[in-house]
């Protein structure tokens, strides 16, 4: 690391100027990036990660400005560059990859044109040479059949393919620095794993420096050498991946690690520890440590009276922390489950029984269109949930898990099959035609905190209205019940008068939970309730759901794509793939071999925030079949790494019953799967 850094921030101060005057988002940030090095920046939303990324290419828009310090790239001060110098630098020396690939690609140009444009513009190559380069690059990002990909438009590619194209576009000019801002956040976990591996490999081959911004600690471990933890615009801890993850010294870093559910944690063993409070707005920056108001180790005086210096740790070179108490804190221990005996609760009566459930979406004909094959969203689902348990449904986007939730809730009706809710058949009963008692039985918590509450109504109205409709309460009964429900979800009663625009994401989701609880439901369906929230908030909502469910002895149907959360929360797990349940069983059984090959791939793809737990990943190759033309055999056959042969394509797999109610739909026997998978784990 004696090289001159390719990028250096020297006490950079960045502000936005708006109606409220100057808002200082980054009060003074310093870090350096050596050639070929990858630095991860992590932190919750609103910590200034993206502002840093944008400021490096001076892309802050009219409102943002670098008001102090220097940002030096390849020895030149960014702030002093002219517009044309900046243009020459952007794209050629520095390339950026953003979260949404569709926003980086031009929808009316073929992918090939967009790729070829880069070398033609920056290096003056002719068409033919540029085309050759583009093809080379496509091979590097592992897109098969490059010739045909070049002729396609962005919408003809999947999300993972689009992000590969964006990465190819970024790397085709051989930039010295690649800035990636949440590049895998919108992708499914198996696709994410493949993209992360690709980034790591490419950066080593091209010797490109990478600034990798993410809220997900696990993805940073996979790609980066060093990590910087940002809080409220400041770099509170910086060091090598191993240093920071093995010996985190800043309370915020520890908080982030403690609130993450991981594959080794279970709700009965190690509770999640949420970070209390939320990031203070940049306008009201406190004196001293920005994290003080949320910190468990805060000491009034040293922490709150003056600016906190960044101190290197004596025994670890390159590891530095912005905390006055860093040296006093005890060594951090990763919370691990004790393993072994888990007290099984006796299974209660069955509240929900799903039998052969199917849902077809007929595609509407246009005025002159002809009929098309229907989309098979659910393809014969059999599931059972008992009172007081959490049944998690996992799968990647498009597997039908949200459709299942809608059928249960009565927002959609099934095309075939049965759903029995507390003994009543509801598969074909829309919610409008369900009697009041049944409406009260099942309630739903939705995914998006910004759309779950009506922006025109206050929190109190949302809850009160549910009480009036479901429990026929009114007047002071209603008002006192609203207060009680707010208390159940740990919100102060004053919040009742607030409209959603004055609530944070976590508060909105709490109000939505209170609304769902208004009718005292026996079954709560939660469709990705935490996936749009920051990790610290996520932990508190998960704890809340857990607590409420235990207290009410309700059944929680928890739908998620996040296996770590599911591992933590679920009693039973159903893994879905293309409208079918490929594996079902107790969480302890599903998360241990034998797995269905799809479950195995999903688990191997989960980014784990632990440098010691980086196993080999199973990369799913092959196309995802369209939901209009499912394979006649196993739905997973086109991508399965353990495909046995023609039998997989032709015959639907048998449902193998293993001990403990564990079911796997696969042609390979349970013992054989366990043997293969244990062998792989030992490698």
């Amino acid at each position, binding site marked *: 690391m004696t090289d001159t850094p390719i990028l250096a921030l020297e006490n950079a101060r960045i502000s936005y100027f708006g*109606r409220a005057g100057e808002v200082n988002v980054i009060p003074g940030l310093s870090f350096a990036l050596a050639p070929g090095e990858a630095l991860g920046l992590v932190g919750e939303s609103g910590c200034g990660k993206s502002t840093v990324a944008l400021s490096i290419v001076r892309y802050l828009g009219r409102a943002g400005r670098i008001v102090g310090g220097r940002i030096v790239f390849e020895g030149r001060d960014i702030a002093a560059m002219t517009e044309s110098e900046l243009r020459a630098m952007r794209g050629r020396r520095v390339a950026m990859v953003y979260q949404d690939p569709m926003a980086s690609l031009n929808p009316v140009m073929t992918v090939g044109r967009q790729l070829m444009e880069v070398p033609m513009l920056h290096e003056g190559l002719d068409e033919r040479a540029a085309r050759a380069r583009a093809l080379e690059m496509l091979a590097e990002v592992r897109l098969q059949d490059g010739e045909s990909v070049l002729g396609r438009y962005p919408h003809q590619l999947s999300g993972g393919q689009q992000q590969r194209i964006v990465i190819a576009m970024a790397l085709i000019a051989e930039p010295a620095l690649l800035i990636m801002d949440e590049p895998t956040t919108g992708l499914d976990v198996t696709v994410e794993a493949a993209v992360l591996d690709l980034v790591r490999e490419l950066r080593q081959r091209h010797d490109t420096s990478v600034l990798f911004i993410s809220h997900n600690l696990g993805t940073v471990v996979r790609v980066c050498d060093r990590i910087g933890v940002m809080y409220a615009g400041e770099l509170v801890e910086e060091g090598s991946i191993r240093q920071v993850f093995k010996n985190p010294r800043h309370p915020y870093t520890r908080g982030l690690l403690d609130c993450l559910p991981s594959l080794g944690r279970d709700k009965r063993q190690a509770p999640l520890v949420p970070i209390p409070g939320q990031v203070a707005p940049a306008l009201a920056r406190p004196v001293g440590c920005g994290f003080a108001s949320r910190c468990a180790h805060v000491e009034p005086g040293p922490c709150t009276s003056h600016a906190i210096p960044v101190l290197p740790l004596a025994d670890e070179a390159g590891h530095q922390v912005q905390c006055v108490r860093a040296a006093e804190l005890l060594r951090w221990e990763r919370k691990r489950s004790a393993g072994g005996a888990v007290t099984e609760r006796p299974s209660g009566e069955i509240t929900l029984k799903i039998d052969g459930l199917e849902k077809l979406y007929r595609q509407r004909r246009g005025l002159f269109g002809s009929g098309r094959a229907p989309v098979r969203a659910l393809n014969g689902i059999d599931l059972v949930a008992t009172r007081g348990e959490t049944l998690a449904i996992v799968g990647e986007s498009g597997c039908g898990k949200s459709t299942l939730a809608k059928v249960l*809730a*009565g*927002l959609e009706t099934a095309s075939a099959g049965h759903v029995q809710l507390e003994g009543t058949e509801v598969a074909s009963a829309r*919610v*409008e035609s*369900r009697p*009041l008692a049944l*409406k009260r039985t*099942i*309630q*739903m918590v*939705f*995914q*998006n905190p910004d*759309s*779950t*509450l*009506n*922006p*025109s*109504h206050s929190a109190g109205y*949302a809850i009160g*209205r*549910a009480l009036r*409709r*479901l429990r026929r309460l009114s007047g002071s009964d209603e008002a006192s019940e609203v207060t009680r429900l707010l208390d159940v979800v740990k919100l102060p009663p004053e919040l009742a008068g607030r409209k959603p625009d004055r609530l944070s994401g976590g508060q909105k989701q709490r109000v*939505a939970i209170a*609304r*769902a609880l*208004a*009718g005292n439901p026996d079954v709560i369906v939660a469709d990705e309730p935490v996936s749009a929230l920051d990790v610290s908030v996520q932990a508190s909502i998960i704890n809340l759901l857990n607590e409420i469910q235990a207290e009410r002895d309700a059944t929680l149907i928890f739908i998620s794509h996040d296996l770590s959360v599911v591992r933590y929360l679920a009693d039973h797990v159903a893994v879905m793939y293309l409208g079918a349940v490929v594996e079902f069983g107790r969480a302890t059984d599903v998360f241990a071999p034998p797995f269905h090959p799809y479950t195995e791939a999903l688990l191997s793809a989960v980014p784990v925030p632990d440098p010691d737990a980086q196993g080999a990943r199973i990369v799913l190759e092959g196309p995802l079949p369209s939901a209009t033309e499912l394979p006649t055999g196993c739905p997973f056959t086109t991508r399965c790494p353990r495909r046995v042969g023609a039998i997989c394509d032709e015959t639907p797999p048998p449902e193998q019953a293993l001990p403990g109610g564990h079911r796997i739909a696969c042609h390979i026997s349970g013992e054989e799967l366990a043997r293969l998978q244990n062998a792989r784990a030992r490698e």
Partner: protein
Amino acid sequence: MTAIRHSTTATVGVAIVLAWVVLAGLAPLLAPYAPNATDLAALANTTPSRAHWLGTDHLGRDILSRILWGARPVLVIAPLAVLGATALGSLLGLAAGYKRGWLDLAVTRACDIVLSFPVIILYMIILTHFGSSAWNIIGVLTLTKAPIIARIVRGLTLELREREYVAAAKMRGESSLYIMLVEILPNARGPLIVDMCLRTGYNIIIIGVLGFLGIGLPPPDPDWGGMVKDTYGMMSVWPHMALFPCAAISSLVIGFNLLAVGLREIGLRD
């Protein structure tokens, strides 16, 4: 209301509109002459003078007084017609967008038919048949403008009906009417209010056109469009007779347009 002060455009728009409202409201006090009073002495020279600031028309009537009095029907009819069209159009758009199916088809086709009809011909047929009165003008404007509002509201409803809070309302057993009026409509109000301002301006133009065609408010009471119609033949000699009422129409329309643009800016900013 405080938001309006942050947008210069909206502030100017509000100022123009409010100025006209005050002038119209105080017309009985401000107008120097009765609107229909003729000053035969002024006929010798109809151009602006100390006695008649904006001159007189070909019958010797004071143009300033007639413009002030003429603002009153315009400022009543145009907004009322917009309110009518918004109410009718919102209901149709909500029902079509929320219920979908045959109702959607019926409403959109009916709107297409009304919108594909040459409106001026429609105005002439209806107003000559039923007679030209303030209520009939309001009625005819409501009917012809409602389809446009219905289209806007239908588009917004199609998007808003998929929101999770609508699903939550269904799950607690709300009626369709409640969902449409209480859950969806309030969230469509931003674009609707902007459109109402724009449409008020357009309605003022149409009222002027109706007056110009002679199917506006019946004479002799002053009507801006009618004033232009009576005097445009004398444009080459006495341009002020037609130009001042035209300027009145333009300024009021511009006021409403600026207000609409400003409100849109505010909406985009928040």
